[in-house]
């Protein structure tokens, strides 16, 4: 991977990218947390209900969405290292409902436990939250500054990089997203996503079969590079 691509801010996955940095914090948290297992399709919480604690994703991918005009809109994807349900700490209901896209393992910590934490736990929590704020900020920046095509390629790149085989970008990756989900995440229409994916097929090795998108990360990287510079 080129250096310029490494510097690309992630926008569409709320992931604590530097989970190793917080190893001590996660060890301490897991030692006191309630470890819960969820199956694909299970909900961790709904946006209308005030939850009693915070969730840390240990394994699996989780989707945040809300319903507007009876339509589901996906707003973010989260994987290991993501903290969720934090609004319960300020006694507010959630922004979104959260549902498992795969089988997940999650650590649950109650609000009362967090209230008794010391500096050693609160400082890393603050740092993780700052990373999340930067991700939301990057999403805002991307929305205002980048073209829809660039946002789509950035999304495909980000999704593919999470699922690399043997850490190699020259091996194909299969990502599972409906065109509507991609459209919601990058803020465009389903039709535009379909048309742009067809256009991408002319420039990259990319195959679309229903919700399965098979692509070569190295091709997407090279295409993104061309779009960027």
């Amino acid at each position, binding site marked *: 991977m080129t250096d310029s691509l490494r510097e690309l801010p992630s926008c569409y996955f709320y992931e604590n990218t530097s989970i190793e940095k917080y190893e001590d914090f996660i060890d301490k948290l897991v030692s006191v947390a309630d470890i819960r297992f969820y199956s694909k399709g299970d909900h961790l919480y709904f946006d209308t209900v005030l939850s009693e604690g915070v969730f840390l994703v240990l394994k699996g991918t989780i989707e945040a969405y809300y319903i507007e005009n009876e339509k589901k809109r996906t707003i973010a994807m989260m994987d290991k290292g993501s903290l969720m349900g934090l609004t319960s700490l300020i006694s507010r209901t959630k922004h979104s409902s959260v549902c498992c896209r795969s089988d997940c393992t999650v650590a649950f910590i109650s609000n009362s436990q967090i209230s008794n934490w010391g500096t050693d736990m609160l400082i890393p929590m603050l740092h993780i939250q*700052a990373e999340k704020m930067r991700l*939301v900020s990057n999403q805002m920046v991307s929305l205002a500054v980048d073209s829809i095509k660039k946002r789509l390629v950035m999304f495909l790149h980000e999704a593919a990089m999470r699922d690399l085989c043997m850490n190699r970008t020259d091996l194909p990756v299969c990502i599972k997203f409906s065109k509507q989900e991609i459209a919601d995440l990058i803020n465009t229409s389903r039709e535009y996503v379909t048309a742009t994916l067809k256009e991408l097929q002319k420039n990259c090795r990319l195959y679309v079969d229903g919700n399965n998108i098979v692509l070569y990360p190295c091709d997407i990287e090279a295409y993104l590079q061309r779009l960027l510079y």
Partner: protein
Amino acid sequence: MINDNHYIFDDLIDESSLLIEYFKRNGQYTIYLPGATIIQQDEVPGGLFFLINGLVEKSVINKDGKKKIFSLHAGKFLAGIISIDGAPSPVTYQCLTKASFYTVPLSTLERQEPRFLLELFRYCIYETGLLQNQLRLATVADSTLNISQIMNEFDMVSKKHHIDDRFVLTHQIIADMIGRTREQVSNLISKKYRLETRLKCREYKKL
């Protein structure tokens, strides 16, 4: 869901007297003139900046060198929290009017009491929620509604915080905030006024 204002963030710290007290006790009081940059994009801020009064813009310079304004901040607000972990700031904070701050260096954070850090964490969550609201509005809401909301918020905040009359909310600023072009905003605003005038005329005729 957090239903507070979305584009002009004001008095976010009002709920937490602990934060206010802390900054007043430990912060260095500084007054900045209009145009002064508090935090520069891609640079690590020296500390947390607690805004007491004045109007501050949050913006990004993109690769073409164009500035995009994302939000305006007035009243009690904390700038620099996005880089509390020592990462470079993705945004620039600049004063639009004369503004006063209490500044606290980041290096002193680890010596603080847990109850203060918990308050700071709660503030972080609250501001993230507002950012998420802003993002959601930009992606789903009708632009005309967003424009009305920004204009109403601005009127309210200007009165509340006695914002200098010389600062004008331009169509370009509104366009940046809702992710549209200046021309689109101008068109929508003139359509809105035309409609309002027509409605007023109709009411007048009825009378």
